[in-house]
């Protein structure tokens, strides 16, 4: 009886941690809404938010309202969404490929999306087409990665990982080529900016366009979280337990790819988040994906929000978020590995 109660306790503890994370995220969103180079007093912020929420007009400055509702709120939302999406797909990828060192872009989605965007920039397309092209590029890259093992008639994880390396490498070269033929005086900056990722200007249209599909993908993956536990035991063990590995893994790959490509659409490519956040999540709530997936979403959202807010408020000019996520992510990952050195074989 004792054991049972303890396991229930464990789950309650995890649920509690998730609730705490959710409240923390909510508080941070509020706090971050109130800070920035353009100063609006917290009281004013709350008044404007309240007013907008319940459609009450007030005596606040229209400029302040535009700043808050039109610039800061979308940006904060974008950061939270992107952080959550990348972390969720990172956690899912690590689970379904039974490999804690996998990041959401290891099937080539990031480099594919960059190529999509770069090609659109090369042809001087408008921003919405650049975003669509990036999304399509990401999906195409993953399809290519999935195609190679098919051609080689191998269903193993290793083959998929190698295929990801092949496609990723080829994509990097293609991107290099595009950058080479791109006009260094006009287009190169835009391509590089896309590659480094930024929330400096968030296009509401892009968020609205990719959000519904992303939410569906996220819900599907969270609903499948227990089966992801089973997949994380490895292919044959999962199958012997009754898992339809191809169906489950296929669905997860499709959903993760949608999420990652969508987040790249919003902010360009941002590294490290999808790799590191799930590990941090496991430290907090354990490996059970039923708890880990929501926790990763929340932690990812919090992390991205904090990083973006830092880039937003410090210095005269904003630096690309990828620089900061790398600077924080790499040492943090090293620390995690140090902590878990016993389990890393």
């Amino acid at each position: 009886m004792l054991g049972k109660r303890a396991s229930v306790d464990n789950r309650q503890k995890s649920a509690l941690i998730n609730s705490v994370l959710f409240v923390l995220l909510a508080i941070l969103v509020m706090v971050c809404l109130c800070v920035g180079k353009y100063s609006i007093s917290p009281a004013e912020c709350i008044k404007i938010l309240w007013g907008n929420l319940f459609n009450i007009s007030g005596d606040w400055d229209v400029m302040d309202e535009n700043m808050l509702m039109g610039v800061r709120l979308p940006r904060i939302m974008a950061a939270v969404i992107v952080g959550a999406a990348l972390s969720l797909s990172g956690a899912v990828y690590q689970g379904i490929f039974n490999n804690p060192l996998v990041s959401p872009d290891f099937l080539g989605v990031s480099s594919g999306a960059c190529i999509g965007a770069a090609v659109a920039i090369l042809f001087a397309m408008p921003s919405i087409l650049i975003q669509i092209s990036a999304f399509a590029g990401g999906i195409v890259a993953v399809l290519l990665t999935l195609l190679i093992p098919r051609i080689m008639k191998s269903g193993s994880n290793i083959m998929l990982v190698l295929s990801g390396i092949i496609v990723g490498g080829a994509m990097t070269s293609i991107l290099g080529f595009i950058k080479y033929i791109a006009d260094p005086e006009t287009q190169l900056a835009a391509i590089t900016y896309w590659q480094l990722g930024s929330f400096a200007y968030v296009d509401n249209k892009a968020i609205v366009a990719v959000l519904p599909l992303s939410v569906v993908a996220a819900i599907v993956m969270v609903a499948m979280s227990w089966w992801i536990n089973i997949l994380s035991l490895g292919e044959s063990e999962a199958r012997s337990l009754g898992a339809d590995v191809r169906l489950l893994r296929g669905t997860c790959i499709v959903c993760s790819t949608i999420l990652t490509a969508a987040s790249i659409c919003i902010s360009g490519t941002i590294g490290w988040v999808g790799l590191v956040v799930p590990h941090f999540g496991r430290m907090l709530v354990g490996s059970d994906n039923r708890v880990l997936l929501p926790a990763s979403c929340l932690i990812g959202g919090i992390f991205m929000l904090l990083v973006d807010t830092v880039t937003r408020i410090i210095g005269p000019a904003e630096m690309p978020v990828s620089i900061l996520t790398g600077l924080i992510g790499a040492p943090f990952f090293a620390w995690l590995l140090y902590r878990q050195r016993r389990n890393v074989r």
Partner: protein
Amino acid sequence: MILNINGLTYSYEDSERKVLNSVDLQIKEGDVMCILGPNGAGKTTLLNCMAGLLEYSEGNIEICERPQKEMSAKEIAGVIAYVPQTHTPSFDYSVMEFVMMGRAHNTSIFGRPGAEDEECCMNILRSMEIEHLADRSYINISGGERQQVLIARALAQEPEIVLFDEPTSHLDYGNQQRVLKKIMELSRAGIAAVITTHDPDHALLLGDKVAILDEDGHMTSGETDLITEERLRDIYNTDLRIMYVEELGRKVCLVPGIK
């Protein structure tokens, strides 16, 4: 008949060598079948074929009178449980979470096991006297305990047959005996077991069915009297003695001294 294998032939891609060559095998309720064979003879391959993890080129396997190829992974998992060799998983789950994964074949793709499943798993842990492990992390328990947990997970599948892949290979004597005892217990409860092992003595100890797989993929099956000194010498390419030890009341298999 739980398992009926006819003319099963398997060879790895790009390889001429038949790992399994026209293998026939029948397993009934409560059978305990020990598969002996030298390293690389395809014992594990045979188990994988039984569990539907490998696609074989020739022959057929029937599970409870149904062709295996027509069954989904879930349907197979409802009959056959597989106890793999112990290994450290990449992710850390609690023993309870781990055992609950045995309930997968009863769970829908968007579902998760409920309180009933948890009750069932708890009962299994209790019956195996390892309920104290329930909230321990699977990574941090000993090898013997892991083997017990793997068996518990197999039982959570409520199978009719359990496949053991060298269940004793990494265990100390005490744990080896516990596993073999558990297998006998299952057999008495009507659950069949297929065990691959390197130790002919375990086959003698379990004392039921024996199958010997040679390097060419041929299989001979029968009772324990199949285990003769001559056969063992052929398989393992070394000298072995089989003798009746009165004190134990059974036949044992031992190596003569190493000079």
